């Protein structure tokens, strides 16, 4: 084994134990570039195979209750089912008689057309599949509400803040999928160059000083929007959604000068 490979395997083994330093990262990249038969996760797979090997002789069945829990929650985390379309019938090979038969049919149609009222001629055009279009937030919201087994739906209401306008709507959140949407109307349009709205999710398992950043968004002139929620980290037990007005790009810690929309469980209102 060459010395560079020794060093590479040393670094990749070390990475199983701790994150590599910046210098080590650079070294790994350089070594991988010159060793095409190695990849970054080689030692991860080797360790996983060894882990499985060590467990093989004593595999215990998973407890039934645990299996049931996993089964019941799986649908919340799987991708949406892909329905495969039936195969299109193969086009028939063209016949040397086809042009003649087409011409004959046309002649017959012309004769019939003289003697009978014109009939509607329907031309069968091969349907071209529409281009793949990403579903809109509203469509994704519909899909989420139709498929998620557990869904939080809390009313969104404007605060007394002068920037809140007549905002109202709903916060929709799937704890299982860690995915959700804000549906608002009446929230004043913003100039993204001047300020942006930012969502915060207060999690009962975290300190209130550190709500989860739910992402920044803009509101256009019509004031009606469906905005995906992009929680920066896992939200375990949401207890409050709050929208603030922040500098463009959002902030890491809000000063909470302008809290414009709130959403809470019904019993908390």
């Amino acid at each position: 084994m060459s010395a560079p490979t020794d060093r590479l395997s040393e670094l990749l083994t070390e990475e199983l134990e701790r994150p590599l330093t910046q210098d080590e990262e650079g070294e790994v990249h350089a070594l991988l570039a010159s060793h095409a038969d190695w990849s970054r996760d080689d030692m991860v797979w080797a360790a996983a195979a060894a882990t499985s090997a060590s467990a093989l002789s004593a595999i215990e069945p998973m407890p039934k209750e645990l299996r049931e829990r996993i089964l019941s929650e799986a649908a919340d985390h799987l991708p949406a089912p892909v329905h495969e379309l039936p195969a299109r019938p193969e086009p028939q090979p063209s016949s040397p008689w086809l042009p003649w038969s087409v011409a004959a049919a046309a002649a017959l149609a012309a004769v019939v057309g003289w003697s009978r009222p014109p009939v509607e001629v329907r031309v069968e055009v091969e349907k071209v599949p529409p281009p793949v279009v990403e579903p809109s937030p509203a469509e994704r919201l519909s899909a989420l509400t139709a498929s998620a087994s557990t869904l939080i739906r809390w009313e969104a209401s404007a605060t007394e803040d002068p920037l809140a306008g007549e905002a109202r709507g709903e916060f929709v959140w799937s704890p299982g999928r860690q995915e959700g949407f804000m549906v608002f109307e009446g929230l004043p349009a913003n100039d993204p160059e001047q300020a942006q709205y930012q969502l915060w999710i207060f999690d009962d398992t975290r300190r209130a000083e550190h709500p989860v950043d739910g992402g920044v968004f803009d509101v256009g002139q019509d004031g009606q929007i469906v905005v995906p929620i992009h929680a920066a980290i896992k939200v375990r037990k949401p207890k409050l959604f709050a929208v603030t007005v922040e500098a463009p790009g959002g902030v890491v810690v809000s000063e909470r000068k302008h809290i414009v929309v709130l959403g809470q469980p019904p019993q908390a209102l």
Partner: protein
Amino acid sequence: MGDGCPVAEAILQRLARGDRAAVQSCLDAYGGLVWSLALRQSPSRADAEDVVQDIFVELWRTAERYDPSKGTEATFIATIARRRLIDRRRTRVRERRRIVPVADLEVESIPSQEHERIERFADAMLARKALRSLPPDRRRVLLLSVDQGLTHEQIAQATGLPMGTVKSHLRRGLQTLRNLLHGSSEDKAEAS
């Protein structure tokens, strides 16, 4: 590498397509493996149950990333399990681990009637052979790491070996496995 049986190979692809029925198949095929790994590396059954749920949630979400050229489905699932177990280990505060006596950490033989059942664990079978072929010290160090989930420092304490030796044993042991999984004839000959 990656010679799992065709039926098992299809499970992760089906999950990636959102096939709900594949969840049952996956739990049938790999539920016991994940549960056993979690039990071995968790301080309690409750902890093991928590981490197993996390592992499968991650699997449902990432099944599409499985690349059969890297290894079997079982090994892919074990990579997720290992990472989750390590994360748990790192977040546990003042954990007092039960360290299994080194003499007990041997690679046991498998009853012949189980061979068919574990065909899907082709990588693991190969790794088992490789583990048996390692010098005893190297094997013990590797098993303390992969089976018990001990850190390098904990392994040094448990074995009395210098830290540098622990790291060296781990690196060499894993490299043997890695070469074997990649089809290095030299290492395959050594393992068989």
